[in-house]
């Protein structure tokens, strides 16, 4: 019915710059109107282009959930894994083929509830990968249950009178587990998200980017917060950029100020470097360094 509409008649046909990185045959995607995951994919695609990494040597790994669908929509080598196990699969990929750039793209429930254990251990070992967590503060795909990131007093289907479970502070968890790059932004900060993802991809070691995203269908509706646009306006008005903030102080409370920024950037030896160094010190020249 509707074809592409252009505002002026003599405009040359210009393709959307991210189309080459997407599987357009699978569009439109499953995400709800007002959901922020599509915007994060947009930022991620632009960050990949700007970072100039070899796309034939980039792999994206997702778990299960709304954000887990990202791997299916990106025109890269992608891996849609079992629930919570995106990081173990990514670790295996990285060990088998150290030339690959690995990006784990998943949601808060998948990475921190079902796969929480894997996250802290990959960060502890400093496996060279980038973890992007789209945090919508609730379990979206399964029907709005309270997640380990849901703020206290927010309602979900499993806590109809409001949650009283203290939530995880994701940047603090990543920082204390040993991640070398930790940043948090909201979907409203599109340019910052793009820059943070680019920096995280180019930073060697376990880098972590948290992106707070609206969930209009479940989180906002159950808590009477309006639609996706209302949440975006809330982020615009209530985000405070504080680079280098102590990650202990960046807790998220229900509808309170959100502290965003780049919190941690440091250098640590990666898992493969440590393995090669240690085994060389034990076996000397008998040991051949593992380069993939």
């Amino acid at each position, binding site marked *: 019915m509707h074809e592409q509409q252009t505002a002026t008649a003599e*405009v040359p046909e*210009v393709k*959307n710059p991210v189309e080459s990185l997407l599987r357009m045959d699978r569009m439109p995607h499953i995400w709800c109107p007002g959901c922020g995951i599509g915007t994060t994919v947009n*930022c991620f695609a632009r960050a990949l282009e700007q970072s100039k990494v070899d796309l034939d040597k980039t792999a994206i790994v997702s778990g299960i959930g709304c954000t887990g669908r990202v791997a299916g929509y990106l025109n890269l080598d992608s891996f849609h894994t079992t629930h919570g196990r995106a990081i173990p699969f990514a670790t295996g990929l990285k060990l088998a083929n150290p030339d690959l750039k690995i990006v784990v793209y998943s949601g808060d429930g998948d990475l921190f509830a079902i796969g929480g254990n894997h996250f802290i251990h990959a960060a502890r070992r400093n496996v060279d990968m980038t973890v992007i967590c789209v945090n919508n503060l609730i379990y979206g795909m399964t029907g709005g249950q309270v997640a380990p990131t849901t703020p206290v007093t927010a309602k979900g289907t499993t806590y109809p009178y409001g949650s009283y479970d203290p939530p995880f502070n994701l940047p603090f968890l990543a920082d204390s587990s040993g991640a070398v790059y930790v940043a948090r932004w909201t979907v409203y900060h599109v340019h910052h998200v793009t820059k943070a993802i680019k920096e995280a991809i180019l930073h060697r070691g376990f880098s972590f980017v948290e992106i707070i995203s609206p969930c209009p269908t479940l989180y906002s509706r159950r808590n009477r917060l309006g639609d*996706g*646009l209302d949440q975006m306006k809330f982020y615009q008005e209530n985000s405070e950029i504080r680079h280098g903030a102590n990650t202990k102080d960046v807790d998220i409370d229900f509808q309170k100020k959100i502290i965003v920024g780049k919190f941690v950037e440091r250098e640590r030896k990666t898992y493969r470097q440590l393995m090669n160094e240690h085994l060389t010190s034990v076996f000397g020249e008998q040991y051949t360094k593992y380069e993939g």
Partner: protein
Amino acid sequence: MKKVQGTVVIKADSCKGCAFCVEFCPTGALHLSDSYNAKGYRIPELIDETKCTGCGLCGLFCPDFAIHGFIIKKVA
């Protein structure tokens, strides 16, 4: 002040009417039109094409990859 003329391309069929592009357009060049697409969502429209600078922020915000802006010419 304004040195470039831009425009937007809208894929009406992909749009879900979230209005992120309309709200965050830096020059206020877009609005939600009264027409609906096949799924029943109100789609954005360029109200004043002279206002568009082709910055592409609408395209960066769009969760459905349904809109993108670009520069068409320089204005003296």
